[in-house]
């Protein structure tokens, strides 16, 4: 276990999350891709805390911020999904074109 190994794991999680967020049609699955990307950020922040500056709490606080960002993203994502589903039965990203062009 080393900083480099942990960062490669974080990079893999971020890349898989990006693939999901870009390729999935369902809005709910897109949000799962975003969650996976933030999951990678948690790994990166924690490993930087442990391997670079363990004597200061900055890394740990950053992990807390990312965890809150995940919950906020989920809550707002589902609220927007509920709102646009109510407005126009939209559940796929391809149908949510109200603001395009």
């Amino acid at each position, binding site marked *: 276990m080393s900083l480099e190994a942990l960062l490669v794991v974080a*990079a893999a999680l971020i890349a*898989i999350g990006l693939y999901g967020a870009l390729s999935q*049609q369902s*809005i709910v699955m897109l949000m799962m891709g975003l969650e996976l990307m933030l999951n990678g950020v948690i790994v990166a922040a924690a490993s930087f805390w442990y391997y670079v500056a*363990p*004597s200061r709490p900055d890394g740990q606080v950053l992990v*807390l911020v990312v*965890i809150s960002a995940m919950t906020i993203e*989920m809550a707002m994502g589902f*609220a927007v999904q509920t709102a646009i589903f109510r407005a126009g039965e939209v559940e796929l990203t391809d149908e949510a074109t109200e603001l395009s062009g």
Partner: protein
Amino acid sequence: MNEDVVTTVVFVLLALVAVGFGFLVFRVDSMARATFALAVSFVAVGGILLLLDLDYLGVVVVVMMVMEMAIMAVFMIAYMMNPAGLMPMSMYHDKPRAMSIAVGTFVVLAGGALLVDWPERQGAPPDDVTEQVGLGIMGSHMLVMMGIGAVILSTIVSALVLASARSRYDRLGDDLKARPARDPIRGGVGP
């Protein structure tokens, strides 16, 4: 067996579980299974945090994400098109391009992780890691947590506003003094 060897083996296993189940999220045939695959990935990341001596944060990640995925499963059932995974599910658009962008991102990030000359470790973890983060968020990093508190409060309000079908000003038309109509047939049926 040497303690370092055990740590390395556990780390490799957890990393494989985190990445493997993360990829499985977009491969399984049912959204419920995808939710549980994501939960397993989060639990593995929580385990990695425990390996890094982050006892409190590791447990927080496991507990919060299991709860979050349980709530997510409810929404999945509300919005998903293939509840039980009885049929193959394929809901992709622009898959080759998404895959090439993702692989490119991984190459860039992993290359950076391996090539950059990271700084030397400064200091050592304190005896009580949880005390460190507790004193941090109640002292030097208090502004961060106050900001998060305000953002979470506004998230609660705006999520409710977005998700509710009619709010208080739209209850019975736009006149706030309007009372419920006196229907000849009760229960809101009929014109």
